[in-house]
C-alpha cells in the first residue's frame, strides 16, 4: 500500500497532520502498538523538520506486510554537515521556532532512536531526503 502526503514549509498549524494520517492507517492494519508509537515519533519529527526548515516536501509511505518504509523529501536549504545535525542539542532553527518549543536539536536523534533504519542524504540549497524503515515483527 502506498500513500503520499504533502508537507507545507512554514505552516506549523498543519505540522503533524501527515503523521496522524499514517498513525490511523497503521491502527486500522492492527500493527503492534509499540511499533506504531515508534513510527509516529519518527514521522512527526521528520514532518516538523520539513515545516521548520524547508519550503515544501512530501512524505511517501509504503506499507508492506512486514515493514513500513517512509521517504520524506524536501526542497530547501539542505544540511551541510549531517553528523553535526545528528548531535543532540544542535539546531539551526530560528528564534521564533525555538520560542514555540521546537528547535531543541532533538528531532534527528529522536528519529534515530525510534526507527530500525534511518538513511539521510542532503544537498545544500537543494533539499534533504530522509528514509525511515520500521519492521513490524
Amino acid at each position, binding site marked *: 500500500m502506498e500513500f503520499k502526503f504533502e508537507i507545507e514549509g512554514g505552516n506549523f498549524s498543519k505540522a503533524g497532520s501527515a503523521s*496522524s494520517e499514517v498513525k490511523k492507517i497503521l491502527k486500522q492494519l492492527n500493527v503492534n502498538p509499540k511499533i506504531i508509537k515508534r513510527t*509516529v515519533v519518527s514521522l512527526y519529527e521528520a514532518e516538523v523538520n520539513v515545516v521548520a526548515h524547508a519550503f515544501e516536501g512530501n512524505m511517501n509511505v509504503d506499507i508492506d506486510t512486514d515493514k513500513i518504509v517512509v521517504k520524506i523529501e524536501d526542497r530547501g536549504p539542505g544540511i551541510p554537515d549531517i553528523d553535526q545535525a545528528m548531535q543532540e542539542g544542535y539546531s539551526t532553527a530560528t528564534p521564533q521556532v525555538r520560542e514555540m518549543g521546537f528547535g*531543541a536539536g532533538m528531532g534527528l536523534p*529522536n528519529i534515530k532512536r525510534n526507527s530500525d533504519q534511518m538513511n539521510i542524504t542532503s544537498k545544500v540549497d537543494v533539499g534533504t531526503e530522509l528514509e525511515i524503515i520500521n519492521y513490524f515483527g
Partner: protein
Amino acid sequence: MIVQDIVEKLGLKVCSGANGLNREIEGGYTSDLLSDVMGNADENHIWVTLQTHKNIMAIASLKELAAIVLVKGYEPDEDAAEQSNEEGIPILSSEEEAFELTGKLYEMINQAK
C-alpha cells in the same frame, strides 16, 4: 484516576475538551520542548507546559496523552482549543507554576497507584 479527579482536587479550569474528562491518567511529563515530550511522554500521561499553540494538540493526539495542563493561568490558542474539543483531549489551566503543579500531580498520581 481520571482527569476529572485532578480538575476537582486542584481546582483547575477546563479550557476545552470537556468531553475527555473521563480519560485515565497513568503518569505525567513536564516540559516545554515539544521534541522532548514527543520522545519521552507516554500514552495516558498528563502534560504540564506553558506552550499554548496548536502544536501541543498534535503532540497530545499523536501520543494519546490524557490531558494538557497549562501553567500560570495561560489559556490555549483558539485553534488548539478547537482541536482539543474535536479529539476529546482536555486542555486545563492552573494558576500555579510548573514546579508546584508538577509536585502535586506527582503525589496524586503515585497515591492513586
